[in-house]
């Protein structure tokens, strides 16, 4: 079935672009991982995590996530040229599966 998924080797730019979309897919997963992290914080001494620290942590992760998304969106948008309306396929190299 791999045969129908395009050529084995692609040009450097296309390759970079595919990895960029991979990054766009993986970024929220990293975010989820970091957001769920506080669940593990309950230490064995039974002490609860601190709201002040937890808040700072969450907002820091949040800001980092947004920054990353900003960079990814900019780069993905730049490569695709005019991606408006319903024409052909604005984001090539993607089979949506």
């Amino acid at each position: 079935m791999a045969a129908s998924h395009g050529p084995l080797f692609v040009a450097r730019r296309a390759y970079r672009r595919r990895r960029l979309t991979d990054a766009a897919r993986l970024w929220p997963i990293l975010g989820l991982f970091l957001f769920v992290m506080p669940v593990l914080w309950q230490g064995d001494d039974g002490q609860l995590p601190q709201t002040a620290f937890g808040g700072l942590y969450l907002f820091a992760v949040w800001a980092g996530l947004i920054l990353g998304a900003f960079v990814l969106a900019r780069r993905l948008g730049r490569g695709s040229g005019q991606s408006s309306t319903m024409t052909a396929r604005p984001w090539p190299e993607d089979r949506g599966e």
Partner: protein
Amino acid sequence: MISFNLLVAVCLAYVGFLFLIAFWAERRADQGRGGWLHSPAVYTLSLSIYCTAWTFYGAVGYAARSGLEFVTIYLGPTLVFVGWWWILRKLVRVGRRERVTSIADLISARFGKSNLLGVMVTVISVAASTPYIALQLQSVTLSFSVFATGTPQGWALPDQRATAFWVAAGLTLFTILFGTRNLDADERHHGVVTAIAFEAVMKLVALLSVGVFVVWGVAGGPSEVLAHIEASQLADWPMQPGRWVGLIFVSAAAILTLPRMFQVMVVENVDEAHLATASWAFPLYLMAMSLFVVPIAVIGLEVLPKGSNPDLFVLTLPLAYDRGGLALLAFLGGFSSATSMVIVAAIALATMVSNHIVVPLWLASRRGRAGDAGDVRGLVLLARRLSIAAILALGYFYYRLSGGSSALAAIGLIAFVGVAQVLPAMIGGLFWRGASSVGVGMGLLTGFSVWLYSFFLPSFGAGGLLSATLIAEGPWGIGWLRPQALFGLSGMDPLLHAIFWSLSLNILAFVTGSLLSIPGPVERIQALAFVRVFDGDAAAPSWTRDSGAEAEELLTLTQGFLGNDEALVFFRTEAGRQGKAGFLPDATPDFIERLERRLAGAVGAATAHAMIAQHAGRAVISAEDLLAVASDAQQIMESSAELRQKSEELTRTARALSEANEKLTALSVQKDAFLSQISHELRTPMTSIRAFSEILAEPDLAPEDRVRFTGVIKDEAVRLTRLLDDLLDLSVLENRKAQLTIRAANLHDLINRALAAASNTRPERAFIFDRDQGAEFLPVITDADRLVQVFINLVSNARKYCDADPPKLKIVARRKAGRITVDFIDNGAGIPKEARGLIFEKFVRMTDTARAGGAGLGLAICREIMASLGGSVAYLPGQGGAAFRVTLPVRPLSVAPDSGS
């Protein structure tokens, strides 16, 4: 201090201002000057209706009760948007491609255009949104009462129910005025979206102002705030892992499935590229909204007297420090949050109710009476207006029933879990070709019932809708059926319990049903189109066979839904796409599919499908067809876009050629007839002239006879001259050598002149003229005499041929995009379809010469005149009679070389 009257005045002024913004945006959009209204910023801001009054007031209350847990409600959506490449991108693409009008429409379109599923999703959405709307009414009411208590003037606490009622009534009015002003073909509401975007700015500014005031004005800086937090009762973070993960999940699900979010995210989306901006900008907005929540909660708990409602800290904190202005700003922020949510939710739900319940019912009631569908737009608009009122009324009754007592956050979560029941169907529909309508139906039913039983009904409290014993011991004392401890899972947080059971049973039923059922053909094709949406437009092969539907019948149908102009423009574009002139494309499968999609944009996929099937008499697809479709799809996917394009072009050319050929064949017959025609035309008057002059030569003729015969000779000579004049005129026009006298004129005067001049054609017939005289006052720079000549011709034709009794002629003049159109529509039998291609040719007459009394050159001359004036005259089908449209530019396109003469 702020008086009650001032508060009401501020609210009214604010709503009036919103009204102006919406009105202005709508005007700009109508004029095609969208500009920055269609920018990613407005799109992102409109998404902020996710932050309702629940966020604005409730988040602080939530934080005051359970610390950082409130933030989960914003982390879920953040992850969904940051991960736009996974789901949102596909959702928006599918939504735009299929012209989806609501989330119910999406599910119905994906699963075989089944209206039953549409109805189910509609019911779930309405049920889940009711508490949410109630929540908005409650928060506005509460915020009013804050200003009432503790005022020195001591104005009486306003009746809360009355306040809620007036708020609901006002919102109904606003929503109806802007949400259902017209039935857009694509369901976009530019005015509303712009107003919502403004409200988004308003609530952000308000919350940030209160936050800044609290952090720097009260606490004295960020580090002091941290110290306050550590010293407060919120210092420890009572993390509940189950709730933490469950809430992130359910809020992520809700942003995808809340009807109002779907409306702004998918339906109102004007450009897919906006999603890329929203992927970081919307999380940024959410973060900004949550930034000061914990500080406000902590300071509120510390400063305000014990027992004050933490849901209202945003208002009571500034009031405690006597900052009336800031409190008023905060009040407006909360008001914005509530109103924007209610408006969009009501529009989204009303669209669903009208498209999936009212219109199908109406269609069913007139089954067997196919044919003229009439103007359905009025019905749809009325249905939407009533739905909006009904939905707000439901919200109001929920508010009264629930007593408006429970904490804001709890109510919001009920709605979240309710709409999340649509998630399995949505995700399954987008990513799994095997997901079937049977599975979705089972899943939705299961999930919805479990949600109702374990979360929604108990939300009214023990002894509310479910009796206390039932909640404590289960129905008929069956312990494992206790609503909040299903299957013996007691000791679980009720929220978590509801999420867990409703969604897992939902998914179980969905998957089982999908695995065991075999979907129908339409459904399989839609599955392919949805799952492979990025494989290009050809992913869904055309699945209709030549249906033999009459394009004109379809036009009449379409006019009922889109309105006359829209329908004609659409049909003309489609005809052009096929390489045909005029307004009627061939009813090819390709065209019918596009038409269906266009109609789906107005009334939803299921209804559009049913309508088209009813009219086009679409053939049922057999198994062989399906196999052919499957292998076609494989081939199409592998073939290059270039090949596709070429073949399309070839088809177009072939069609144009065959049409030209048809016309040529008909014309050559005509041309052969031309000589005999012209000789005949010339000979008839000549014969009578000769005969009568011979009679005149008789000496013994009575004088009165002599006078009569001379008269006949004169008449025939006049007819002969007219014929020769016409021929000469035509040849001059055809060679583009006509002298034009271009001057400014008033269209109204020209039409008057034409009507007066044409009145001596069959003067015995009393014609009724239906004109909108006011609309005719249009300035036009053209050769007025020539234009009047065209009008006279069209009017006299109507006088001659219209066979209705009483005969009526409707004249509609309009100006649109630099062109003027004048329609002449009579109420007669019209012109048969096969003759329409020829009526503008020379010597073509519909009836006998005797009756027509002309040589059949009139319309040919009209056509040539209009061509030299830079316009056109065309037959307008589907108007219930013979109809002609004259189109001309407001001023000559280029300065014609002979304009000065």
